[in-house]
């Protein structure tokens, strides 16, 4: 492990912390523009976080230690996940410890903790949110795993670094399996990050909410951490998508000269992804909760088809 790699890792750790709310702000701003509103500006998530951090925390009477610990665990998990995805360069010392399966495991760990915390107070909305979140999760998690498996099978490795390097430096080939995987991944991204059409992040409309129902009892610093963790999760998913499907332009190991360019390119890609998400959300309507299993089942099926396509058509090559 070289010093430069360590520095890069630390740099990325700080970068994702700041970039995550920014991405969220950008998406909201784009959505506002698409809806003919002027919008609050891309820095609004930072202001919200700052406001929340300054408030007094209110805790329900029967909140247990688990409820208080969860925001920190959630935040640490998502921070780690976001810091692990190669964004600017592939020179990352932490990466060998966590491959794609372990990355999915970290997401699952965070999900289980927030669902447990939602059940902790024992309110009707909390448990409902937990149940729905687990419902979405148990179909989204294998779908995400299958998407990542397709990429892993192409590059013969489950290490994210190797996957990105293989896909970025290979001659441009259209993999049919990756096309299936891409569609499945977008569906998983929408569901996992509580976006329309599965969930609506901007509403407290009681009977349709999933994520918001779970975090209903959180306030102040706890809520700030949960919100920040959600932003980090969205960033992690966006960067995973970029790493899998449009990895070109990432800087190689020890290539310091390429870093500024790679960083600029990454921000550009993220901006496009954010605008695309905003467009997708504006164009679609939220679906009934009973339809969500079908939506997620489709994603899972597409992901499996992708992997199957790879095993049958591409593995001989």
């Amino acid at each position, binding site marked *: 492990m070289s010093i430069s790699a360590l520095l890069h890792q630390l740099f990325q750790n700080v970068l994702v912390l700041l970039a995550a709310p920014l991405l969220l702000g950008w998406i909201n701003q784009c959505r506002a523009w698409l809806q003919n509103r002027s919008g609050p500006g891309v820095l609004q998530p930072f202001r919200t976080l700052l406001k929340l*951090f*300054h408030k*007094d925390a*209110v*805790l*329900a*009477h*029967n909140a*247990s*230690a*688990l409820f208080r610990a969860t925001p*920190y*665990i959630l*935040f*640490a*998990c998502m921070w*780690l996940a976001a810091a692990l995805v190669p964004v600017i360069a592939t020179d990352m010392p*932490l990466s060998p*410890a*966590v*491959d794609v399966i*372990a990355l999915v*495991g*970290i997401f*699952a*760990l965070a*999900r*289980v903790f927030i*669902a*447990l915390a939602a*059940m*902790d*107070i*024992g*309110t*009707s*909305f*909390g*448990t409902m949110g937990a*149940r729905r979140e*687990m*419902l979405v*999760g*148990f179909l989204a*998690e*294998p779908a995400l795993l*299958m998407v990542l*498996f397709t990429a892993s*099978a192409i590059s013969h*490795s*489950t*290490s994210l670094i190797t996957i990105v390097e293989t896909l970025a430096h290979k001659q441009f080939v259209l993999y049919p399996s990756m096309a299936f995987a891409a569609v499945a991944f977008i569906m998983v991204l929408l569901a996992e990050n509580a976006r329309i059409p599965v969930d609506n992040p901007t509403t407290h409309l009681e009977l349709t909410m999933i994520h918001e129902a779970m975090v*209903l009892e959180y306030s102040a*610093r706890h809520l700030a951490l949960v919100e920040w963790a959600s932003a980090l999760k969205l960033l992690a998913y966006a960067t995973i998508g970029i790493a899998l499907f449009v990895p070109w332009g990432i800087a190689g190991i020890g290539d310091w000269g390429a870093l500024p360019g790679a960083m600029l390119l990454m921000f550009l890609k993220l901006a496009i992804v954010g605008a695309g998400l905003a467009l997708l959300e504006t164009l679609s309507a939220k679906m009934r909760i009973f339809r969500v*299993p079908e939506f997620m089942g489709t994603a899972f099926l597409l992901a*499996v088809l992708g992997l*199957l396509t790879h*095993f*049958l058509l591409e*593995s001989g090559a």
Partner: protein
Amino acid sequence: MFEQFGILPVDIAMGVIVSWLLLGVSGLALKPSYITRYVFPVSAFGSLVLALAGLAGLTETSSAILPFGLPGLPFHLRMDALTSFFLLLLGSASVGISLFSAGYFRNMEKGALALLTLEYHVFMAAMALVFMADDAYLFMVAWESMALSSYFLVTTDHDKLEVRRAGFLYLLIAHVGAIAILMAFGVMQGGHGDYTFDTMRHAHLSPFWASVTFLLALFGFGAKAGVLPLHAWLPEAHPAAPSPVSAMMSGIMLKTAIYGMLRVTFDLLGTQLWWWGVLALTLGLITALFGVIFAAVQEDMKRLLAYSSIENIGLILVGFGLALIFHHFDKDTLAALALTATLYHAVNHAFMKGLLFLGTGSVLHATGERNLARLGGLIHKMPRLALLMLVGALATAGLPPLNGFVSEWLLLQAFLFSPGLPHDYISMLVPIAAAAVALTAALAGYVMVKFYGVIFLGQPRDEKLAQVHDAGIWERIGMTWMAIGCIALGVLPVFVILHLDHVTDMLVHQSLAPSAAKSGWLLLTPINAESASYGPLILLFCIVIGVLLTVSVVKRFYHGRLRRGAAWDCGYPAQTARMQDSAEGFGQPIRHIFTNFVEVVRKLPAPNDLHPHYHAETRDRLWELCYVPIRRLNEAISAQVGKLQHGRIHVYLLYSFLTLLALLAFVK
């Protein structure tokens, strides 16, 4: 480890077995307080010694011949790597269970406790002998002792009708399985009349007879393991048994079946055919999915865990099938990887499911309630138990950095690196199977959130829960042992794999050690560092650092004020504990999605009902499909045979006379 004293591991293991039996008998004479205070801790020490003997036996094979048994049929014992691994599993997991028992059985009355102590120790000794037997005769004796002693343990509360029924079902299926195993041994000895395993190893069976043996063994051992459709006894027997016994049965006894399958398929049978693997893989997948779906809709906490055990056995079987397929096609590195995943999951399951079953025992002791609908909020009254159970629940949900994740990771790796199998259909099966395994693992998370959330979180659903106390000291010590096992197996996989290596080396003649240990003990790299690596300790370290950093930064730059208030719940003031999701409600989406698997019988209230009551019961369709027809057939045959019975003596004399005539004609 013990060589310098001239003692072989097999001698030590025998010593432990004999002392267990003595301890069991001593229970008949001792006062109840002595039994719980001394017998169980001493037997836990015996378990520890057995585990050490197993550890020593991994590297050196030792054998012994005991002069017991029938004339000319002495008992053969042998401790090779496979045996030693399973003895290690038995020893290390039963340490925690026995320590827990020292606290759990303290309020039992004398007669029942004395009997239970005897049966408990005979059960453990029989399991150890199953692992050590080197001839079919001793194996069957030990197998039957295991089945009978566990039957008596299951029916400890035999004054309840449902317990007796569960025990009978268990005994029945165990014996149907035992017959199949006996026949498998019969085929394997190949007409030599010699039932030592050594003869069987050298008898070369034709593919047909080898397949017959495999199918018989799969059926027989599958009945013990709870493979579909022979799983029916598991969800009945586990809730009926006292919790330490459930832990022992689910954690360890189910593994005797896995041991049997491995022993017969990889050691005793010289050849393996690929379709055996496909069969095992398919059965395993169906079992795993079935188990986890049914676990999600259960309302009884021990039944839920029993179904979860079925799921885990399914996953183990998947690994076993995969290893068979790879081994047949000479992909021995992958076979070793799949086998490692299988064995790793077996030991993981012993610890995590043992922990959870023990925890349900403590909950049962404190509340007297197995029904999830009457539990809730126990984290406030039983915080230590809740913490230990959190470890168990997260491990069972297969989350990093705990142990359940490691074996699932290894299994998924085995799937991922399997392209290039010669048959297209098998290549097609692999991604579908991987998807099913991933789905099962994700559903396990759902099940565990339900299990933990409904029992420990939220508001108490019953008034009597206000008076409960935390688990006693012995119970906590036992569970702490299991929890430490879960964590250690989770964060130090490289050490575990180095030990498992002796077993894979013996069974598929390939070891993973050179590649697994190459990147140091922090990183697990089963094939090579480029294709896959996983460092649970680093991951845990990162998360802990992240948490500490966040806490300290938040505490430093923030005033840290905190108020307690009523729960918000969208401003709804009149909340009661009944407004939380019940276990039924939490399982509803699963019932809804998997309607075709699960048969739901609903009782809906009538519109003018003054006391409306909604009730939904889930049933197992296989019961109707498999067991009821067999029962009907059995009854029909019995009815026909019954016609021979008239109760008149002259008719019976006629039967005897005819039999005599027939025999005379035959002899002549």
